[in-house]
């Protein structure tokens, strides 16, 4: 006995599965990204521009530093949220 909700869920699941499988097969071959201009320039200039040997760190804190601020903010938000949810209700 399948309810209406189950049928909907199965259809949704099938559509997503089809989409994802197709996109997986259409991707460029694994290990051969096409012309990574942005990353090449980071690898070439990271040491000189940021002074760090670790290119990933220079991306995280320098090139995409604002993302990292957002990421730190997300952790801050989660802590505030968890403490809010488990606070004492009475003042």
């Amino acid at each position, binding site marked *: 006995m399948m309810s209406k909700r189950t049928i909907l869920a199965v259809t949704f699941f099938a559509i997503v599965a089809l989409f994802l499988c197709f996109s997986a097969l259409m991707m460029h071959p694994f290990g051969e990204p096409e012309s990574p201009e942005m990353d090449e320039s980071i690898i070439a200039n990271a040491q000189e521009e940021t*002074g760090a040997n670790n290119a990933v760190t220079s991306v995280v804190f*320098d090139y995409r530093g604002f993302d990292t601020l957002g*990421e730190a903010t997300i952790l801050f938000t989660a802590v505030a949220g968890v403490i809010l949810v488990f606070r004492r209700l009475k003042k």
Partner: protein
Amino acid sequence: MSEGMSKIVKTIASAAFPFIMIYGLYVIAHGHLTPGGGFQGGAIVASALAMILVAFGSIWTMGKIKEKQLSLFESLGAISFILLAFLGLGFGTVFFKNFLVDNNFLFGMVPETGSTFANFNTGGVLPLMNFAVGLKVIAGLFAIVLVMAYAIHTKEEKL
């Protein structure tokens, strides 16, 4: 349960704690040279603290440090991080400018291009940001774990 686990676990956990802690701090400090950084090292230190929490129980831990203090530490980390970004606007020209790189002040050296030896005094603001984020992640993750563990001992309140 609230009293923590057996004496063996407590002893081993206290013995292992400093080593994990030092490893985590090493990962934070060398974020600009070797794999790792503020987030990863912070997670390692926070897991050491979580181990202590599991071994000694949340009530004992809550007696040592409150989530309010942790939240304060986390705020400090976040503020120092955003202040470093603001200092880029002040000293340099734009927000998030790496203003310490290529001058003879703190962490100001620039390594030679290509494969080099580790030189701790490089990276500009990157190591400082790693420290700020490390402080934030340690305090933040431990606060989450502590609050959730302590919540088991509290009951639902009515208003």
